């Protein structure tokens, strides 16, 4: 119950103001199609430089929480998921809104998000210290394999093609090796002066997540996107609360699936929402109603999306392995404030981490309150003209990248990575494994070097990295993550089905 002692920091005026701003801003950004939660958090990181680490993390955490929930607004009212995590919500939410129950759909969505989110953060509170103690037993070889596991899991599960997912991870790992190797005192892969200091994570994140979305907006051309707006007649909030309280089965499925998906490194919310939706339909007494405006569909999908947020930070804070692409961006935010996640994070930075986690708990409640009252307003902003959004994101990306080190080299790297990622995405590659490779590459490299030194003094490299119970379990997990995806991808062709289903939903 150590966390209770750090609640005071959340109620300090600046912290509370950032929490409110992050929540409302996140809801609006989340509701805006084309602006993903990952991109929103990446663009916010430069604004945290002038804040204390606690304040910066509170802002990023609030934005992370509320962008995921805010994506449901445009999914329900416009049938355009604000984020990939809200694809499943659009299926029943929009059908319900078309039946004249838009307010009911929004209320169910935010209430379910709140319940899922609170349970997720409670899991974060109680699981993280346990895992941190367990992680103390890890040596360099184990941490090396855990870092590799992070890349293979996200490369295998988060991509439409597992070959391209793993290839993206490899590209990220290689990009992370560019720069000056301080241990050996030599340069690696420096082709131009801009790369002397390596690739800074923040411009890279902004480029990889923001520029492809700007170019996707360009690709639509001068099209007047007439988005159909659905009227939102009033609905009793108390009826919605009662309905959510009665939906124990959907909530249980949603929060359980969300929590498990969040704990698996790198998987993310899109999978949580779709899996919870599928499972909820299978266990429902009325599966035929799914897709036609059924409350269970919205409740299971939205509770899963937000239940994923807290647990996705458990491997991040204890092992430096993000549980979702947005958590990977958050890792970048931690690193720039000099906070290195690991087993001793609660000993080194207890005030920062507990205040941050507590703010996420309060943020869930604020997200429900503000979500219910600002949903209709957020939907109006979601219809902002595409050219203004494209131009705005481009300029923000430019300023955000430059402000990190006040270097034009960073801006050039940001744009080059962004354009390259857009082209790769068009051919089925994914940014998330590349980012994870970029973030985990130096960590894996350092543990490999440390392990190699220990191995040299012991029985050799092979014995150090490939023997021992924990090493073998981790290697088994690495191989399993690749093998499972190979099986579903090559033999059963599941990923193509997922892609097709996603396209239908969109």
């Amino acid at each position, binding site marked *: 119950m150590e966390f209770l002692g750090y609640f005071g920091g959340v109620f300090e005026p600046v912290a509370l103001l950032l929490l409110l701003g992050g929540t409302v801003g996140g809801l609006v950004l989340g509701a805006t199609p084309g602006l993903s939660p990952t991109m929103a958090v990446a663009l916010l990181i430069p604004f945290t430089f*002038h804040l204390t680490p606690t304040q910066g993390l509170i802002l990023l955490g609030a934005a992370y929480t509320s962008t995921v929930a805010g994506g449901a607004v445009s999914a329900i009212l416009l049938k355009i998921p604000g984020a990939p995590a809200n694809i499943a919500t659009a299926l029943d939410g929009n059908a319900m809104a078309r039946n004249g129950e838009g307010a009911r759909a929004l209320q169910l969505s935010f209430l379910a998000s709140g319940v899922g989110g609170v349970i997720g953060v409670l899991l974060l509170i109680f699981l993280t210290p346990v895992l941190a103690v367990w992680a103390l037993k890890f040596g360099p070889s184990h941490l090396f394999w855990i870092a590799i596991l992070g890349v293979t899991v996200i490369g295998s599960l988060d991509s439409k093609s597992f070959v391209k997912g793993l290839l993206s991870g490899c590209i990220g790992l290689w990009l992370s090796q560019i720069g000056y190797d301080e241990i050996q005192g030599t340069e690696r*892969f420096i082709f131009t002066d801009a790369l002397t200091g390596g690739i800074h994570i923040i411009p890279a994140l902004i480029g990889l997540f923001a520029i492809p979305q700007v170019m996707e907006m360009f690709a639509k051309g001068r099209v007047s996107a007439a988005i159909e707006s659905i009227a939102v007649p009033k609905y009793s909030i108390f009826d919605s609360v009662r309905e959510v309280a009665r939906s124990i089965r959907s909530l249980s499925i949603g929060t359980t699936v969300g929590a498990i998906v969040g704990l698996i490194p790198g998987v993310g919310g899109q999978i949580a929402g779709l899996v919870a939706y599928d499972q909820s339909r299978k266990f429902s007494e009325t599966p035929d109603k799914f897709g036609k405006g059924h409350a269970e569909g919205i409740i299971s999908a939205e509770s899963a999306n937000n239940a994923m947020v807290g647990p996705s930070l458990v491997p991040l804070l204890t092992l430096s392995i993000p549980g979702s692409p947005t958590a990977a961006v958050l890792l970048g935010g931690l690193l720039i404030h000099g906070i290195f996640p690991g087993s001793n994070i609660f000993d080194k930075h207890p005030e920062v981490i507990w205040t941050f986690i507590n703010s996420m708990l309060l943020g869930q409640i604020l997200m429900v309150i503000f979500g219910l009252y600002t949903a209709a307003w957020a939907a109006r902003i979601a219809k902002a003209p595409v050219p203004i959004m494209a131009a705005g994101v481009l300029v923000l990306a430019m*300023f955000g990248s430059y402000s990190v080190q006040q270097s034009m080299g960073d801006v*050039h790297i940001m744009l080059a990575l962004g354009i390259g990622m857009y082209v790769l995405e068009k*051919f*089925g590659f994914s940014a998330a494994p590349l980012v994870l490779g970029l973030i985990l590459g130096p960590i894996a490299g350092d543990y490999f070097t440390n392990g190699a030194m220990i191995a040299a003094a012991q029985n050799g490299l092979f014995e150090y990295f490939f023997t021992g119970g924990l090493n073998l379990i981790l290697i088994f997990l690495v191989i399993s993550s690749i093998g499972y995806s190979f099986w579903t991808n090559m033999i059963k062709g599941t990923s193509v089905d997922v*892609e097709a289903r996603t396209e239908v939903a969109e």
Partner: protein
Amino acid sequence: MNASRLQHIIPAGAIFALAMTVTWLSFTQEPAEAFVFPRIISIAFIILASWNLARAGLGMARVGGGLSSAEARHIFPGLIVMLIYVFFAAKALGFYFASAIAFFAVYSIYDPVPFSSVKDWVKRIVITAAFMAVIYGLFALVLQVQTPRGLLI
């Protein structure tokens, strides 16, 4: 929509060439100790890149719609604005002035409203000015970021 075999081969070939270069550099650069981890990465990289290229060559690459000629046409003017803005104008004209021009250019190019309407040109100028005022307030006044100054600010 799925891209043609040729469309898949081009990026797969480019990635294979990159993997070859990375592998060659990893195994030829000195000191060898600094390149042990990059060598491990490059081996995985080249195996996966070869597999990806083979799948593209055999027409087995099923994921990814590719880039249509219409999309490429639409992207082209925006891409030119981005490149000029980032690689030339930001330093030559000044960060804020170049940003205002880039914002206005992108907004105008992709705005579906006809170019003949004076009212809409005024609207674009007002929105650009308002956006840049917010950016200036945030970055220059609040965050105190020192940006390159060219001919203007």
